[in-house]
């Protein structure tokens, strides 16, 4: 071709963008791997998830059989005591975790699908779809959560599946707004405009360009939404709007409360369940927040720290490495 081979310079070696390559492929996982907060959060979450999965096999006692007196205090055989029906609290917690986490994650999944879908459609297409969908979103946003949950639970009746949908209906709106904003901004990126100018179909652009770009945000949002979902499940169950026949952390607290565990001094019937919920939520938050922080490197406030560049004593002549 008559072009000197050295006319165009060598590309940089793979994976090593030199100082300043931020947005490379696995930057998210790398950032998470490097963050203590993320690792702790993930660790906590995995701990509870594993226990929840293995509950039927590793719970010391059956969660529906009485093995002692009501509100039996903690002992060697029953490290967390017994509930109002004489059932081993530890086993109850393990089974409860199962349902709570499943309900929480299921509700999150439904909320993400609805919210993400609406966000993508509104953000990408704009115009009338955006207007219409956002009005619907606003409508759901302003409905007060608790009365809404009470009404829906009253109308639909008890049941874990119903609970999942009630929670999902409460949660999808925030996701929709966040995803819509991000999709709108991605849509204006030059490479998306380029794909459109090539004649790419909307579906292709959404799947190949938009989704990967909002993926990390979706993940962060999912994790944070899961925290709220689990909290909502606990709260709704505590208020008696859950499924009384199921074993969830919320139910455990509810029964303990209703059956006067507090006046009986049986803290073990309420506190451990509450702590489990708290830890799972914290785990979700730590993980979700660190993903969010990784998404926005400019949040690192090094610019605001007081300037204190270091000075080295003058040495004549050029020095290469101090």
């Amino acid at each position: 071709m008559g072009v000197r081979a050295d006319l165009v310079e060598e590309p940089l070696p793979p994976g090593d963008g030199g100082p300043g390559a931020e947005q490379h492929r696995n930057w998210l996982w790398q950032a998470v791997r490097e963050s203590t907060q993320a690792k702790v959060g993930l660790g906590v979450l995995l701990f509870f998830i594993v226990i929840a999965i293995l509950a039927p096999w590793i719970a010391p006692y059956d969660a529906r059989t009485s093995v002692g007196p009501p509100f039996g205090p903690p002992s060697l055989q029953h490290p967390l005591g017994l509930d109002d029906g004489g059932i081993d609290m530890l086993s109850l917690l393990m089974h409860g975790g199962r349902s709570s986490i499943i309900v929480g994650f299921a509700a999150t999944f439904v909320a993400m699908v609805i919210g993400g879908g609406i966000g993508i459609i509104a953000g990408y297409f704009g115009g009338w779809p955006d207007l219409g969908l956002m009005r619907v979103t606003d409508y759901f946003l302003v409905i007060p959560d608790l009365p809404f949950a009470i009404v829906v639970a009253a109308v639909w009746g008890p049941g874990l599946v119903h609970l999942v949908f009630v929670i999902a209906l409460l949660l999808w709106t925030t996701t929709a707004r966040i995803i819509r904003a991000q999709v709108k901004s991605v849509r204006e990126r030059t490479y998306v405009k380029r794909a459109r100018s090539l004649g790419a179909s909307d579906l292709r652009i959404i799947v190949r360009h938009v989704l990967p770009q909002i993926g990390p945000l979706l993940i962060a949002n999912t994790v944070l939404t899961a925290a709220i979902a689990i909290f909502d499940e606990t709260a709704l169950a505590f208020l008696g709007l859950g499924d009384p026949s199921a074993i969830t952390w919320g139910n455990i607290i509810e029964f303990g409360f209703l059956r006067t565990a507090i006046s009986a001094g049986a803290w073990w019937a309420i506190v451990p369940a509450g702590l489990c919920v708290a830890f799972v939520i914290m785990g979700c938050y730590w993980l979700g927040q660190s993903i969010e922080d990784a998404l926005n490197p400019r949040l690192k406030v090094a610019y605001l720290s007081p300037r204190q560049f270091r000075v080295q004593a003058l040495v004549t002549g050029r020095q290469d490495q101090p």
Partner: protein
Amino acid sequence: MSLLEVRDLNVWFDLPRGGRLHAVQGVGFTLEPGHRMGLVGESGCGKTTTVLALMGLLPPSALVSGEVLIDGRSVLVDGEQSAQLYRWKDIAMVFQGAMNALNPVKTVEAQILEPMAFHGIAEGAEAKRTAGELLELVGIPADAGSRYPHEFSGGMRQRAALAMALSCGPKVLLADEPTTALDVMVQAQILELLQRLTEELGLALVLVTHDLPVVAQVCEQAAVMYAGEIVETGSMDAIFHAPRHPYTRLLFAATPDLDGEEEVVSIPGAPPRLDHAIVGCPFRPRCDRAFGRCAEERPVLRAIDAGQSAACHLNDEPVGAEP
């Protein structure tokens, strides 16, 4: 004693994954009042870091050595403490993209008054009068000071940024790419303004840019930077008509010109990474006249003629000798 003297300035940055980046390597120059010097180079050559170092505006990850003397007094000797004494009062800077970094919720006048009050230069009615004079000096009607930055055009915002930089009466002005984002006509206005300011106020100007023709038009002398060091310095006339460093020559050859009829040619390759020590001449891989010595020995910036220096082994060879 020169107004501004920079001696053997070195800046290293700590890298997040360990190691250091040697961003500025042994930079030195002097500047007298009323003189305009161009600091020319492409992205990554260290010119912005150099002027930031002169202001003492380096991040905590930076390590500096060398001397910066204003009227004979050292600016950097005590780090931030000493830099603070001179910043804005003796030496001021217009940053890259300053016109887009003005505070949108403060009037232009307020933004000029702010540094004056902070540095104890003037306050109240007297300060307002000075601000008005400054605005007129940069070509903005004084009563426009009560407007907000978004009401100004790009050129006017750049003038406002200049007025802010001059508010505490500095003797040295550092301008980092002051006209890069501007249209060519507005650029001409701003360059004319910079020329007038140096003449009327006796300011010394360091104009940092990648645009050689801009420097040729405004400055009397220039320093060409490559890979963190100055590779050539001299009068504009000398470095264009008799460049002593291949990079200078090739950079001119890569710059299209309205008058020029010759072919415009790129420089092959890319600048070296500055996180490793460089053996030999940093420009060697891209140089069209490199020879044996260039791979082994690093050239030093040496005076060649009156007022012209270059860091190239070719200048040591007897005239007419083949490499």
